[in-house]
């Protein structure tokens, strides 16, 4: 289960660490794919390793957008192929830079 965004301490929510972003992304992904988070690796390809298609990838990106209260524009999600790349984008957006 993921924690509802409103229940998270606002300070912590404002500046999640890189590790925290990574861990929450893995947790969200594991929930969507119904698999053990321990089996998800950062270097995993969304498609070949995790078996995601474009629709499940959109669900994942949308969940991240909700979880971290960030707007992910469609254009910036083009070309994402690994979990690492997704986490890097989310981290960048959480930090407010583009």
């Amino acid at each position, binding site marked *: 289960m993921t924690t509802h965004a409103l229940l998270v301490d606002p300070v912590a929510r404002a500046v999640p660490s890189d590790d925290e972003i990574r861990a929450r992304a893995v947790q969200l992904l594991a929930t969507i794919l*119904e698999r053990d988070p321990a089996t998800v690796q950062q270097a995993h*390809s969304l498609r070949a390793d995790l078996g995601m298609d474009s629709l499940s990838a959109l669900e994942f990106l949308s969940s991240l957008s909700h979880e971290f209260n960030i*707007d*992910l524009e*469609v254009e910036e999600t083009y070309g994402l192929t690994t979990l690492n790349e997704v986490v890097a984008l989310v981290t960048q957006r959480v930090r407010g830079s583009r």
Partner: protein
Amino acid sequence: MNVAADAPTDGEVMGLLIEETRRFLAREVDPAAIEASGRIPDRVVAAAASAGLFALTIPESHGGLGLPLRSAGTIVAELARVDRSVATMVGLHAGLGTRSLVVHGSEARRARWLPALAEGERVGAFGATEAGEGSDLQAIRTIARPEGSGLRIDGEKSYVTNGGFAGLYTLLVRTPGLGGERSFSMVCVPRETPGLSVGPEEDKLGIRASSTVTVRLDDVYVPSDHLLGAPGAGMDLAHEALGWGRVVMATGCTGTARYALDATLAHVTARRQFHRPIGDFDAARLQVSTMAATLFAMESLADRAASAAEAGGDLTGLSAAAKVFCSEGAFAICDAALQLHGAMGFLEQTGVARALRDCRITRIFEGANDVLLVHLGAGLLVARARPETPTSGHPAFDEFDHRLARLVAENRAEFGVRGTQRQLLTSRLARAEVCALAARASLDRAATEPESAELAAFAVEQLTREGHRQLDALRFIQEDERAAAALSKRAYSPWASGRSA
């Protein structure tokens, strides 16, 4: 002798094949009797094979007719005018049942199986869906593990059309040992393979003579060359085959709808009420005109999708739109046909009741329409660019088309990727897009068929109105979401608490 001059043209081949198909239908197919028996008799399958109906899309190099999808669709529509179970058998074989083998099979396997498939010695079947998974292909549990020089397969596939008598099953399976932990692959399993077993025939609302079974795979072993395409590419192959199969299904829907319209025209011009034929009343005229216009648009969109399939490229959106539009159109036309027949329509002897129940499944199988619409809408929101189409010269259509493009862009800018998860947004945009595609295909067809101009104009008018209605409904998404969440929560609660007790 000039061989080239004597060789029949494609048009001549199609003319002969349509004649042959009609002869087959007239001699062999009694739809009421076939439905009552609950299965397609062996002699009908054999006669279909003799008529070349299993050879439609098999390449000529491997004993088939090598017809383009458009032509194969024409034959499936002919069959569907008379018997949807027979049309489903042939259409599934020509589409999902053989498409992946034709395109992605190894030459050795193509040489081994395709001639038998063209002859109808083996009929093709396709299995992706599993019990409890429905349209969610990602949830497939049937698994194939590499072992020696082959694959060991265990699992079960549900709702396998043609499965009861098929000779070759093309299956989408998980292959964690090939191309990634969560990879899927497509594999062919011949009927005689030890460990493959077929369950009893399902009892269904419609297409009651079409074979629908569960196929079990217990410790099934096949050599690795039974794999189609690259290891791990199964999901791509499945989507490609489904794109092809949905076009075949869309054309089948035009056949059923044509039957229902013809039956209605015969009835409303002969049946008299209040001292005149019922077809002379304005309300009946409008219904019949709407049926004819809908069918015109269905044929136009199915034809456009079939032509796009021939041209190559990604068929996903267009085939889904054609499948949704033609399955809903066929059902609406059959329903209107039944209504215009009055109480007689409810009796089996008129045949429209059978047509109505037979076409109901097309809104569900090969991708439930609700799911396809949500996917189509999500695709619109994340498309790199909506394909540029020149203005049609039809002011009302162009205005609608521009409004649709503007609203897609606005929602994309407002919601980003989150918009793709809002199903009321995606499905309403998708319904508007389906209207736009059908209207556009109708306009383009009318440009080459001057005699259809009036019918096309009416179809475009109806589609444009419906498209605007879908776009108008975008304004109510938030309140509809809120109301649906609250009302469904209340409605579900006794059921949910009953389960947890």
